[in-house]
Structure formats: structure tokens, C-alpha cells
């Protein structure tokens, strides 16, 4: 492993903490004032909460500012959350709208430069440089992935191949013919490419190409997927994270340590809150991550509730960055189940299963209420990898799963082993949770 891949913005990425906090406060005060003075929605909600930007004296004072929700973004769509005049807006993007109607974000020239810099940093963090041939297989268009990574690639000086998504045989041909060294796409598309190559192009060998690294994001993925991509493509796979509401990809990115994503804190202030009470939790706690942009002009986001569940922590990272790390997002607060008072995310159960089985698990969680008590049943499909001809081994497996759920989540669950392909799959995507409690 290389220790400390080059940093694109060393000054900010390795800044001593006190200095970073001071910079954040200075920028936060500008950003909150900018939102208040130039956007009627922010002015209205700040006023209603009895908050004025003059009251922001410390970073902690931000807790007095109301949250911005996804619903408010939708209600103000398309341009209601812009804080500059339209003549200064040079581009718009839109979220995919997978969980409701789409939200629109705008960028000034300065915002685009910030964004390209954040992507350039992410590329550098994943070992990329001006020597790379970067194949951008994210979709180009309203979606932030394609154009976002494109301009970041140019910023770092890489040779950008703007192929966009799809057209898999062409993707593979270009990897071969252009000597692509770095791939950027969704992790599921990377696996799709590997599948396609092994099915239709038996002579294609990723190890004989120059492909060395990949930057994957725009959807949650697991360590099991990382191992699969790395093994099948013979590359190092890094996680890049972002939300179009905040800026797009480039909010945080993994480094050579591949443990946690460094948040670019000179551009974003992050808090972890309890998704139910909204209370800010101490560093190290798991909860919903809340974003505040520090320098964005067109669409400042002040305390945006991402619904993403993660944990923030600081360690002395081998890469030399002092930036706070966030864990891979482990779930959405919308998916959160409350079982006998305990918050449970389906993804937590998923990662337990990945850990135990070593493969991508197929499972379903059924929650029911008998009398006053919630019952949770975890149904796990028995794939060949975990199957044994011995009953005691199979019993030990379900026992182990139940024990892990009990020790990690603090709830007892009934674990049932089921045959493959018995669990409901809607439109290719498995239905993970069946909550029968509302019906009774």
C-alpha cells in the first residue's frame, strides 16, 4: 500500500484542527448570513426559529438554526432555494428523484470551480493524477455524476474519456484500446462490466489492461462488493460520496487507507444527529449526517438533513489528511425500524450477514406485533457458500446470526433459513423489510 497519496489541496486537507475549526467558523458565518440575506425561504425559517446570523459566534451556535429537509427542497423546486440572481447561475443539475419528486440545484461559476476542485481532491485521494486516463462511465446529463467527475478529472489534469454510462462492450474496448488507468462509475455498473466481459468477451482479461484503480459512488455499497470488484478487475476500488442537494459527488472520499471517507471540511460542516429527536450527538456516535455548505454561492445548504446514517470520527490517518472521516453510509433514516424501542437499520443486519457469510446475502426482515411486543424475524436465503450437509453446522449458523444480532443491535431476533429465491424481489431489487405492525 502506498502511504499518503498526493493531496490536491494539501493546505486544507492536512490543516491542523484548531486552524481548520477557525476557518470553518469564519466560512460558516459567511454562509449562514448569505443564505439569510439572499434567500426568502431561509429568512422565513430562521426568523420563525428566532435565529439571526449575528447570533452565530461559535460552531456550536449552529444548533440553533433550523434544519433544511428534503421536503422543503421539493416545495421550493425548481429555483426557490437559489441565493444568487439567475444571471450568475451557469448550470443546473437535478437529483434522480428516486425517493420522490426531483430536486434542482444551481451552480455559479465559483461553485463549479469548487466542485471540480473537490473531485480533483477525491481523484488524488484515490491515487489519481495527471498521468491517469480517466474513463467517466457515470451518466452525463442532469445527474451530477458524469459532468461532476468530468470537470474534476480535467482539473487534476487527467486525460478524460467522457463515455458516459451504458454501452458496455464499448466501455471494455476503450479500456483496452485507450489504456484507461482509472474508472469512475457506480459500483453496480463496475460489477456489470465484469459480468459482461466474462460472459461475452472470454478473451478479455482486466489484468492485461492498464486499469489500476476505480472511483465508485452514487449508491451504497458493501465491503463484499469492494472485494468482488477488486478481485475481478484487478484494481483498487475507492468509495466517493456525495449528494446532489449538497453539491454532487466530492463531499467525501476514501484515501489509500480505504477505511472511512474523509469529509472535505473546509467546504462542508458536518453534524451527526439523532434522526428521531434531532439532537446533535457527540463525535463517534452513529446517526443521521447533516450538511452545511461553507462556500457555496447559488444553493447554500444550511443544516440539510441527508437521511444518511453514518458515524464521524478522527484518527491519525496514514494518508496524512487531518479531515474527519465518515464511515460508509450504512442506511437511510427513512428505512429505520424501531423494534421494542431500539433503532434498527436493515443495512446493519445486512453487514452482519456479509461478515458471517462472506458473500452478498439475500435476506428479508419481517416485523410483527404479538400483543404489546414487537417480533422480528430475519429470513436468510441459504446459498451454496454457507450450506452444509450437517444439521449441527446449519443450526450453528442460524444461532450465530441470532447471537450477532443480539450483541450488535441489542435485540433478539428469530432467524429462519430459507431456500434461495423464495424471498420477494420487486423489479430486481429485493424487498428487505416487511412491517406487518401497521396492519394490526
Amino acid at each position: 500500500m502506498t502511504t499518503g497519496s498526493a493531496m490536491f489541496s494539501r493546505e486544507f486537507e492536512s490543516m491542523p484542527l484548531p486552524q481548520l475549526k477557525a476557518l470553518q467558523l469564519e466560512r460558516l458565518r459567511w454562509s449562514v448570513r448569505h443564505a439569510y440575506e439572499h434567500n426568502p425561504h431561509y429568512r422565513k425559517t430562521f426568523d420563525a426559529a428566532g435565529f439571526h446570523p449575528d447570533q452565530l459566534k461559535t460552531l456550536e451556535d449552529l444548533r440553533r438554526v433550523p434544519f433544511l429537509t428534503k421536503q422543503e427542497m421539493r416545495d421550493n423546486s425548481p429555483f426557490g432555494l437559489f441565493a444568487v440572481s439567475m444571471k450568475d447561475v451557469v448550470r443546473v443539475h437535478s437529483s434522480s428523484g428516486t425517493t420522490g419528486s426531483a430536486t434542482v440545484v444551481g451552480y455559479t461559476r465559483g461553485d463549479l470551480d469548487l466542485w471540480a476542485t473537490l473531485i480533483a481532491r477525491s481523484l488524488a485521494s484515490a491515487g489519481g493524477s495527471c498521468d491517469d486516463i480517466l474513463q467517466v462511465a457515470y451518466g452525463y446529463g442532469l445527474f451530477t455524476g458524469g459532468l461532476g467527475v468530468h470537470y474534476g478529472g480535467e482539473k487534476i489534469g487527467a486525460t478524460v474519456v467522457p463515455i458516459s454510462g451504458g454501452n458496455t462492450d464499448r466501455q471494455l474496448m476503450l479500456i483496452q484500446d485507450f489504456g484507461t488507468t482509472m474508472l469512475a462509475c457506480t459500483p453496480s455498473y463496475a460489477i456489470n462490466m465484469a459480468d459482461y466481459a466474462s460472459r461475452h468477451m472470454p478473451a478479455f482479461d482486466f489484468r492485461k489492461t492498464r486499469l489500476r484503480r476505480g472511483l465508485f459512488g452514487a449508491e451504497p455499497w458493501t465491503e463484499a462488493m469492494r472485494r468482488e470488484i477488486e478481485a475481478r478487475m484487478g484494481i483498487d476500488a475507492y468509495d466517493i460520496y456525495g449528494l446532489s442537494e449538497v453539491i454532487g459527488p466530492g463531499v467525501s472520499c476514501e484515501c489509500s487507507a480505504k477505511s472511512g471517507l474523509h469529509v472535505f471540511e473546509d467546504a462542508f460542516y458536518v453534524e451527526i444527529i439523532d434522526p428521531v429527536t434531532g439532537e446533535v450527538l457527540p463525535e463517534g456516535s452513529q446517526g443521521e449526517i447533516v450538511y452545511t455548505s461553507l462556500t457555496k454561492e447559488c444553493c447554500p445548504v444550511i443544516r440539510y438533513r441527508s437521511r444518511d446514517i453514518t458515524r464521524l470520527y478522527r484518527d491519525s490517518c496514514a494518508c496524512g489528511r487531518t479531515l474527519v472521516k465518515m464511515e460508509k453510509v450504512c442506511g437511510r433514516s427513512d428505512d429505520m425500524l424501531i423494534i421494542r424501542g431500539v433503532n434498527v437499520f436493515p443495512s446493519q443486519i445486512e453487514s452482519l450477514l456479509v461478515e458471517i457469510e462472506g458473500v452478498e446475502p439475500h435476506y428479508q426482515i419481517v416485523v410483527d406485533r404479538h400483543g404489546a411486543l414487537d417480533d422480528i424475524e430475519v429470513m436468510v436465503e441459504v446459498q451454496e457458500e454457507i450450506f452444509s450437509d450437517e444439521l449441527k453446522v446449519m443450526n450453528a449458523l442460524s444461532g450465530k446470526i441470532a447471537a450477532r444480532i443480539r450483541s450488535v443491535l441489542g435485540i433478539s431476533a428469530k432467524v429462519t433459513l430459507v431456500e434461495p429465491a423464495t424471498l420477494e424481489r420487486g423489479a430486481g431489487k429485493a424487498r428487505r423489510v416487511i412491517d406487518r405492525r401497521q396492519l394490526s
Partner: protein
Amino acid sequence: MNITQLSVFLENKPGRLQSILKTIADRDINIRTLTIAEVNDFGILRMIVNRPDEAYEALRAAHVTCSRTDVLAVALEDTVGALYRLIEAFSKRDINIEYMYAFTDRYQAHSIMIFRFDDTEAAKAALLEEGYTIMKRSEIHGE
């Protein structure tokens, strides 16, 4: 010399066994013997068939979770105390039997015991030392 047993994960639900047997029958594969070990919600079907590799592929293609397991088949005279003496050969050597089942060969009028050991090689050595006949693949699978 080891015999291939097919082990199949089976949910305890009506119709499941039938659908597995149909997959086997549709391939014209003959089952020589089978046994089911079960707990509350599921069971493990263990069977000896004439063409185990083909049966394995057919079941996998039908998305059935199954595996091939090495077992030993031992021919035993159908007389009082024969099984007792056989098992004694294992116990005095501290060889543990994971599971076992039996069937009768209709032509030669002896019993065939199927054994699954955690240490198959040690069991084999014990059997040979005591003069037992370990049956060949061709005798059990037929072809």
C-alpha cells in the same frame, strides 16, 4: 473409492421435496437411497443417485441449494451383531461418525451402510485394517 452423496437444503413446506424429486426424475436419474434430517423449519435431504454430478448440475440450474459430500459405503452381512462390531471398530479408534444411514442391496442380500465421517481417511484405514469391504463407486452409483 469415496461415494458422492448429494446434500440438498430443503424448507419444511409442502411440495418442496416433490419438486426436487421431479428435477431428478426429469433427468432420468435413479435414486438408490435417501434420508432426510430435519429440524423445525428446514431439513437436509441426503441421497445417493446413479449420476451424482449430473443431478448436482440439474438441481443447481433449478436454483436449489445443494452440495456434493464424500461418504463411505460399507457392505455388511445381514446378521445379528454385524453393525455393532463395525461401529466398535470406529469407537475404539476414537473416530466420530457425523451421520449414517442404511439400505439393502436387493441382489446380494447384504446391507450397505453409508457413513459420513469428519475424518474420512482415518475411517478408511480402520475399515481396511478390520477387513471390511469399502464399496467402489461403480458398485453404488452403477455407472
